[in-house]
């Protein structure tokens, strides 16, 4: 319904000018092709891996054949180590989330505080753990928590110098969680901080005028407005800690006596050390399904309910 006669108003001229875009629509589709091809090159191995989980493929023998769901049956009956690995994975994820979410949020609130003396310096310094390779973080922590090194020495001031860290059967998992917290509290803080920066000042001022104190303002005004960001941080921490590999591989490699052997570590060992590729792939498929379902629930909870609108800068 466009009037193209001469003397049309400027807005109509603009919409006429914009028209070529629609002709070029196919060009835009074509522009995405190279990226899709490369992604396909990565997708094919994934599908190949899923199909391998239905065989008895090992790295040693060239002979293999279709065995249906036998690998999955083996996984799920009690004799495999998979249940143990899954339990460790869930414990790890649960601990990571209940530690990192509150501390990350607290750190973000503090970094956003007008009372902070050196905001720029503090923000840069607390972000540093996020920037080093996680495997290097694991390695560093492995060293600094060994007996006589800096962390036990500091803790001995509080009478905790003998906490066994990575060498204790009961303490190893919590130790790795602490390392994860070291890396990822800044991650949570960064996302929440981005949310804080986008909040309008007006609601908080109104609450302040109404006589709310600082804690009440944070609890009743700030945090509810931050919900999308908190859930986004939760989504990423959930996915990434279910699949944490680097940090554990750099510090304990699953030990002592499988105390930190998560499902990903177990699958890695099965494939690369014991050559049970097919079995390993079935473990990964189960883990993938769990991650996908959990993150889909979180994703739906917040994001898919409403149309995409606006942007955060």
């Amino acid at each position, binding site marked *: 319904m466009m009037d193209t006669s001469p003397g049309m108003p400027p807005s109509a001229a603009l919409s006429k000018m914009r028209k070529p875009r629609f002709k070029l629509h196919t060009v835009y589709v074509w522009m995405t092709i190279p990226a899709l091809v490369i992604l396909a090159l990565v997708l094919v191995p994934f599908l190949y891996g899923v199909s391998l989980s239905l065989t008895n493929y090992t790295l040693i023998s060239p002979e293999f054949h279709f065995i249906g769901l036998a690998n999955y049956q083996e996984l799920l009956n009690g004799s495999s180590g998979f249940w143990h690995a899954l339990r460790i994975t869930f414990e790890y994820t649960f601990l990571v989330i209940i530690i990192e979410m509150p501390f990350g949020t607290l750190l973000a609130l503090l970094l956003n505080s007008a009372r902070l003396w050196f905001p720029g310096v503090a923000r840069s310094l607390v972000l540093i753990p996020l920037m080093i390779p996680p495997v290097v973080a694991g390695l560093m922590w492995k060293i600094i928590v060994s007996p006589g090194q800096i962390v036990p020495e500091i803790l001995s001031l509080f009478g905790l110098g003998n906490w066994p860290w990575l060498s204790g059967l009961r303490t190893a998992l919590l130790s790795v969680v602490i390392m994860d917290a070291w890396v990822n509290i800044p991650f949570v803080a960064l996302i929440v901080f981005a949310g804080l920066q986008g909040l309008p000042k007006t609601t908080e001022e109104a609450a302040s005028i109404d006589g709310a104190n600082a804690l009440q303002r944070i609890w009743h005004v700030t945090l509810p407005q931050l919900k999308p*960001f908190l859930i986004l941080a939760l989504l990423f921490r959930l996915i990434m800690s279910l699949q944490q590999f680097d940090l554990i591989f750099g510090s304990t490699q699953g030990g002592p006596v499988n105390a930190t052997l998560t499902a990903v570590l177990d699958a890695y060992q099965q494939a690369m050390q014991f050559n049970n590729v097919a079995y390993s792939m079935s473990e990964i498929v189960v883990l993938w399904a769990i991650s996908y379902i959990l993150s889909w629930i979180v994703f739906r909870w917040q994001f898919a309910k409403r149309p995409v609108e606006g942007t955060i800068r």
Partner: protein
Amino acid sequence: MNRWLRWSSTLGVNLIVLAFVMFALIPFIQIASMSIETPVELLSNTFHLVNHPTWANYKDIFSASSAAGAVGQVSSFVRYFLNSLFVSTVSVLIALTVAIPAAAGLAHLIPSLRNNLLFTYLSFYFSPALAIVVPLYIIFSHIGLTNTYTGLIWSYQIVVLPFMVVMLTGYFEQLPKETEEAAVIDGAGQWTLFWRIRIPLMSGGIAASAIIGFMYAWNNLLLPLVLGNQGTQPVTVGILSFISYNQASWGPMAAATMISAIPEVVLTLAVQRYLVRGLTLGATSELV
């Protein structure tokens, strides 16, 4: 509010932040100190700040007669470091080459299709990297790509490309429409529009996604661990070979740790304000 309460809460905020900062820096304090200690000091088995600083550990990891061994003419650490640099840089360049047009295209597609694509990209994140690495290892060993740079760079696309497409799509969408309309009125074609208007306008975003993509590539462990060997593996894998040493050799390892952490810290501090978007695969601009 009375003055005393104001002061004590200010002090409280700063002290807690200081505690977070100390927590973040503790590992670096010890590792930096260890990296300039002599073997005798390292063997004393208790933590102390260094007494007799020495560059010997740094010299060791860079010399061909390094305790950590050598590949050909160079020390293995130098080799790992150069591998990291080469594989990460080429991976990012390839990803940029395909991601910029893809992002420009996606930004013009209808929103519903785009959001489905976004979720597809995000779902790459949901799948454990092992799901791709192990099959890739089998495929690569059939076609002779294990232990090659080509194989590594190919596999690194899974780490770098999806994130880059999503992040850059966000930037393309945010470009001010007025400038483009003005350019079109001035007779600019789509090609000119793309190269002369859009690309320069988002050079900051492109640089940021390149650097964060580089960080993803540099940090990666699993892909090169499975798909590479001593000739092609990057520092993330190489550093693990230092781990089996006795305590006297922690010095070179600490030096190696410092060197493999520093480039990234410097690079990423430079793009700090883009970090949120990068680390969330661009999701903060798309979803929240």
